[in-house]
């Protein structure tokens, strides 16, 4: 089965510009996650979707970050405007499970490395 797809793989922007990342999860996976991974740290969950609904966005900086999962499949994460501290790798993951159930295996895409200058 195809894995989690993400694009672009790399992006360089100036601060205050906008950027969008795309994710296509594994077919049939109900739950989709966006993580931010700053160099030297573990991933930090930004937002979790179940189908096309938001389960948890408590750590999403909503003044500048937004995300949607149209039709419960693909997802887009946007940053507007970007700050220097947003430089990180943005990882998308998906899992079969529905929210509220025991932890399921998450499958990760290759990530998008964002550099904000």
């Amino acid at each position, binding site marked *: 089965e195809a894995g989690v797809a993400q694009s672009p793989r790399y992006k360089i922007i100036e601060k205050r510009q906008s950027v969008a990342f795309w994710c296509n999860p594994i077919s049939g996976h109900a739950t989709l996650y966006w993580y931010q991974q700053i160099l*030297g740290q573990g991933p930090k969950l930004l937002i979790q979707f179940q189908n096309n609904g938001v389960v948890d966005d408590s750590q999403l900086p909503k003044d500048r970050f937004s995300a949607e999962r149209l039709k419960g499949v693909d997802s887009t994460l946007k940053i507007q405007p970007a700050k220097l501290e947003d430089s990180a790798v943005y990882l998308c993951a998906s899992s079969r499970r529905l*929210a509220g159930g025991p932890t399921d*295996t998450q499958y990760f895409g290759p990530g998008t490395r964002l550099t904000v200058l």
Partner: protein
Amino acid sequence: AQSVTQPDIHITVSEGASLELRCNYSYGATPYLFWYVQSPGQGLQLLLKYFSGDTLVQGIKGFEAEFKRSQSSFNLRKPSVHWSDAAEYFCAVGTMDSNYQLIWGAGTKLIIKP
């Protein structure tokens, strides 16, 4: 609050030598435990996981991990490392208290000496 500690930021091992990467967690009950590996420029790949049962878990690429409840640990081991094992390794736990979301350690970077 739950937490995951990987005490070693970097570990250097000679090719062919054995490896143990440490992971300790803070949680009152048994969590769901995972080890992931991240090669340079790649996403995270699951090595192995523990949910219940036999406390010695076998994973891919010749890795294994042992859950020790008394020590709140889930250390990753490999009897003989290969140069291709050079990567960053992350331990993660999922608990009911975290709504089963993963709590991640900071990672251990494995360096292989030829």
